[in-house]
């Protein structure tokens, strides 16, 4: 499957407090929270992201808290995937569970320029400015969760609700 999108570029160690600061965690819904995404670092970003955009980041994206609102908000902003050098582990699982596609690649984040476009052939390669970067596929059990549309959908199916 192929996806294409405009990229936003962030640095290393983007932590969950940047993705959604604690002071907004008692707001009622993801809808209420998402306008504050990335506010300590890039206050304009949440309002500028368009459906289908892609986030490219350095190492250790999503480090910090287990707040699942972090990937859930990114998903609700309709970001199609996050490409980073590496992901923090709780964020990683939470993202998969929310059907947010995560792609690890060590070279792309070093060359990416904000505003440019990138094409991703999931599990195979990413193409940027005419160069192809090889991607490793996710483990099968994780792809199953993403393909099911996330863990809630998978559990609903298990409980005979779909």
């Amino acid at each position, binding site marked *: 499957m192929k996806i294409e999108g405009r990229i936003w570029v962030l640095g290393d160690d983007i932590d969950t*407090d940047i993705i959604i600061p604690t002071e907004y965690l008692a707001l009622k819904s993801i809808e209420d929270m998402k306008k504050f995404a990335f506010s300590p670092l890039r206050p304009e970003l949440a309002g500028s992201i368009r459906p289908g955009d892609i986030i490219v980041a350095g190492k250790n994206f999503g480090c910090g808290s*287990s707040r*699942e609102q972090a990937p859930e908000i990114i998903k609700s902003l309709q970001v199609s995937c996050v490409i980073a050098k590496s992901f*923090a582990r709780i964020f990683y699982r939470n993202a998969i569970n929310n059907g947010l596609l995560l792609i690890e690649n060590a070279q792309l984040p070093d060359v990416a320029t904000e505003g440019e476009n990138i094409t991703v052939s999931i599990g195979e390669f990413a193409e940027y400015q005419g160069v192809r970067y090889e991607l490793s596929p996710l483990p099968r*059990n994780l792809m199953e969760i993403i393909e099911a549309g*996330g863990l809630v959908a998978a559990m609903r199916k298990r409980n005979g609700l779909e």
Partner: protein
Amino acid sequence: MGYTSIEKIINNNLKTDLVRANDIVTVNVDRVMIHDIFIPFVADKFEEMGFTKIWDPDKVVLIYDHLVPTSRVEDVRHFQIGDTFAAKYGIKNVHRSDGICHQLMTEAGYVKPGDIVFGTDSHTTTYGSVGAFSSGVGYTEMAAILGTGQLWVKVPETIKVIIDGKLPENVMSKDIILRLIGDLGTDGANYKALEFTGSTVANMSTASCMTIANMAVEAGAKAAIFTPDEKTAFYCSVSLNDVPEISGDEDADYIEEIHYWAEDLVPVMACPSSVDKIKPVTELLGTPIDQVFIGSCTNGRLEDLEIAARILADKKVADYVKLIVTPASREVYKQAAKNGIIEALTKAGAIITHPGCGLCCGRSGGILSEGERVVATNNRNFLGRMGPPSVEIYLSSPAVAASTALAGHIALPEL
């Protein structure tokens, strides 16, 4: 080939001996911890998933700590949802104001050596201090565990950390973990288990081990693990016979071994705004500060308050500096009151707040203003954590924090 501690715990859990690092397995969960800040989302996802009952309500612990006491009108909604959920699904283990989740889980006896425990908080790694495999998960996975009692896990590889020798007087376990995170980097232990051993570790109190296990996640670790011993058995109120044999084998497959001589360690701090930006306190001496916070699941225990009281006894916090002390639980507060610690700290000018997450989670409890600087004993100093991005947060041990409060600037503990 021998087994690492994590491999042993998981093998015991699955009653096999075949499990090795990198295997993907489904474990049986012994206990879960859910706290106030995320219970509304857990409850939502649980019902959205179509579950009608919790696999074993007695294995669930619901703890209110991030929002205690309330600081905004919307906070009570979390308690209302939590109370309703607990009543509906038969959860009896509910703690509404007893203290911080990670303090209570071991203090109140919910975690035993060898257990597999998950919590809706990244610092769930804390219970590795009593020999449990414990890790943080998101609210969706917590909902799935509530319904199934199980979770898939990729068995982490293990980094062995050996610390031998006797710590200098002014060096605490906080300095050890900060040093390690500085050496590994914030992702240096990504997806790994950190197994702690050595003579220094063997002689450490459970409380000191908790400080180290608590911050393992700041190096990206999935879990921290300490070998349970008599001290652990006593702390967890189990007999030594009931403590499983889970010490890492000499010939187990460790992907890395890191060794420290305790005598070489010095008091350090994590500088703004990353936990791995470690510098010796000697390089930061004299940096003026506006506030000091002693508390959190990292360093809010009796031994932490005790050393602060020792440093501040019969002295006064520097003029125009605020010292906020938040004991990690009611039990700790009561013990500290009994031991004269609370009196000593109050007379020195400390502001003692009710046990809870307090300033650490950044919703209230001592938020700072543009350009101010705080020294704190918690586990994170991310941008914007305790006020606007210009607020500088330095992480340290309670000894360094207390000495800093006394001096009004970053200072070395003299003990």
